[in-house]
């Protein structure tokens, strides 16, 4: 299924590294955006205490060094065929390392880790909420990287002194990888991109620079921070892994999917359905409001002017299906939930609210916990399977409603990607409850494709964003087909179920 190899030695392709939560992958893309090869390696998840999730940054770097040559080998290509390398990464995961040895001072604290609760609570108590909201775009939350950096500075021996002396550097995963790729100790380029920087709680969303006030509030020494750069520019040239290849693009994974889905016009929305789900809406030059529980963030900066995005994050979607499979043993594979759900015509009045670690957007209820409501002796496994799938659809609807309320301009279609788009019943239900068409692009690798796009743009492999639209092809479209009265009844039932999940933890 590969493109003709007649000109293999001269074939020009773009490499993308997708540094994700569970694995690191390298994908190669042709000029038309077709994936030519992929190689993948999982890394270990460290759970030192409840609520703590860590990664070994050194292990992740070793995996990068393995998957890139493996992808080249699978495609039958050499490093000379690679015109540029782009990176998409798990966001908000925080690492500090010694600039002289290259060794991380501690394991990276990942985005799922909630240990910074007390730090965030203190910021709020000190009345700094409005300062953060007005500068970084969103009030203090454990979700972001800044409080994790503060935790490391406070708890890792030598971290603060090293940072103040200029010996210790901070980065999110793309910073770490770019620094290693460009030569590490003595030579490595220490940069981040605007999208990852916008997830630190340390950057001024308007100026796209580190905010001295926010740094001071979290007691972060500025000299340990990477330089903030655009998403598409040559940061440096690889000294390792792909010697001579420019590292020319980086994006947080969800912003990468926004670019990969070519959501370049204000109002366009994408939703990536994975473990959780992330909706991002292009808001153009306008910084969206956070009143609806949505997070204003940088969408991408290609060239001079930043394009902003409004994000709605849903914590549990695909992981609810995994729980249904692994913890309840109701199904053998994730795909079989559709088979089970199709054994019944509807949910039988049953609803599952998966507030496993609280609810994210638009509720932000840390003390909510999961509930199953509407149980009667009529309910079968099939109804539960329906309720599990419907939970993903209704959570999507809540975020879309919040986006519509924020701008007053309704979303008219949704571009979906990610593994759950294989579930036809779910995608149809999403279209039904949103009452807008849902589309899936050909090729489900929107995140990696976005990273490849920005890197290719930086080196002139593609002339501009608009050309990339021609690479987007509709693979499927689900049209809404639900009776309006049924939709409204179900929406009310879902809202009542959500209300019952609130304030369970005391």
């Amino acid at each position: 299924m590969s493109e003709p190899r007649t000109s293999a030695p001269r074939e020009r392709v773009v490499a993308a590294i997708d540094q994700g939560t569970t694995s690191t992958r390298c994908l190669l893309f042709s000029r038309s955006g077709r994936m030519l090869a992929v190689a993948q390696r999982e890394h270990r998840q460290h759970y030192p205490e409840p609520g703590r999730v860590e990664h070994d940054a050194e292990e992740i770097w070793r995996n990068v060094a393995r998957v890139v040559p493996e992808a080249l080998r699978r495609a039958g290509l050499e490093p000379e065929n690679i015109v540029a390398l782009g990176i998409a990464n798990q966001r908000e995961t925080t690492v500090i390392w010694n600039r002289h040895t290259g060794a991380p001072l501690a394991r990276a604290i990942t985005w799922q880790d909630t240990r910074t609760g007390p730090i965030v609570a203190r910021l709020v108590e000190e009345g700094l909420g409005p300062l953060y909201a007005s500068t970084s775009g969103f009030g203090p939350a454990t979700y972001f990287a800044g409080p994790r950096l503060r935790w490391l500075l406070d708890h890792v021996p030598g971290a603060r002194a090293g940072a103040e002396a200029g010996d210790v550097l901070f980065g999110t995963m793309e910073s770490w990888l770019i620094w290693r790729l460009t030569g590490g100790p003595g030579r490595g380029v220490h940069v981040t991109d605007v999208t990852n920087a916008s997830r630190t709680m340390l950057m001024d969303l308007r100026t796209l620079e580190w905010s001295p006030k926010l740094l001071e509030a979290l007691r972060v020494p500025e000299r340990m921070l990477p330089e903030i750069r655009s998403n598409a520019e040559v940061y440096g040239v690889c000294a390792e892994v792909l010697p001579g290849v420019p590292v020319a693009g980086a994006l947080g994974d969800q912003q990468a999917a926004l670019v990969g889905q070519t959501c370049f016009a204000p109002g366009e929305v994408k939703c990536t359905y994975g473990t959780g789900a992330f909706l991002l809406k292009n808001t153009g030059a306008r910084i969206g409001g956070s009143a609806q529980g949505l997070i204003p963030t940088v969408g991408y900066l290609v060239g001079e002017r930043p394009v902003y995005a409004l994000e709605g994050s849903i914590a549990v979607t695909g992981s609810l299906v995994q729980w249904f499979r692994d913890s309840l043993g109701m199904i053998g594979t994730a795909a079989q939930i559709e088979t089970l759900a199709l054994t019944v015509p509807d949910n039988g009045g049953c609803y599952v609210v998966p507030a496993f670690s609280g609810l994210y957007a638009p509720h932000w209820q840390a003390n909510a916990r999961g509930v199953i409501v509407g149980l009667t002796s009529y309910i079968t496994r099939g109804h539960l399977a329906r309720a599990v799938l419907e939970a993903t659809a209704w959570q999507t609807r809540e975020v879309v409603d919040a986006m519509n309320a924020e701008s007053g301009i309704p979303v008219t279609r949704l571009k979906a990607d990610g593994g759950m788009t294989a579930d036809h019943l779910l995608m149809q239900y999403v279209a039904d409850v949103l009452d807008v068409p849902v589309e899936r692009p050909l090729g489900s690798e929107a995140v990696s494709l976005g990273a490849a796009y920005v890197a290719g743009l930086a080196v002139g492999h593609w002339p501009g964003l608009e050309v990339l639209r021609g690479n987007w092809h509709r693979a499927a479209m689900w049209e809404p087909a639900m009776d309006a009265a049924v939709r409204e009844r179900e929406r009310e039932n879902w809202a009542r179920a959500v209300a019952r999940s609130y304030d369970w933890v005391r």
Partner: protein
Amino acid sequence: MPGAIQSVERAAAILRLLGGAGRPLALAELAAALDLPRPTVHGLVRTLRDEGLVDQDRATALYRPGSGLRRLGDGWDRHDLRARAMNWADALAGGTGCAVYLAVPAGTMASLVHHVFRPDGSPQTLRTNTEQPLHATAWGKCLLAFAPVATPPARELELRRYTGRTASTVAMLEAHLAAARTRGMATDVGEFEAGVGGAAVPLRSGGGLTVAALGIAAPVEELFGGGGEPRRPLADQLQAAGREISALLVTPR
């Protein structure tokens, strides 16, 4: 009449041993019970494991009856099929410029498990979970030709004439199926919808059993060359995708 196949007899003996033991067994125990060299028994039990008929505990390496034994009557779950085939189906649509379908037998019809739009921006309607006649579509004829147990015989089908090209007699349909078996690919030259052609290859799980048909659809003149044969580059990509997906169906679920 040829005699019994020894390896099949031995495999049956292994299954009986594991089923009757009431506890997981080690390779040495199996070899001792069958009075066979360990490498011989290892080859047999490993093949049974790959087929899902024997399970092996990861930690202890002991063998026990496999979960696949309880599912002997079940085919592949249609949604597992879609999940496994999806990436290759997308790549096939991207490479050929054709719409892609995945079909399984459903009584006297072919049920479409998956549909990828033709990537040309034209308005199209999703046909996932709809049914099409076995005798008039490439994927339907592919299932008739290659999955004879899972589909009814040609003489039991109602051979409705959809277009002037539909195989509307048993003899005509049998000729189509014979050609498909020879070619390894079934075709439809506008036999269900006038002007819309199709080509389909079987997707085979472990042991070569056909579980589904993978097809491409495009205007007849685009899909077929002068001699009425599918154009070579399209046929090659279809065959290659079929092989890749089949390889994913060999491993146990």
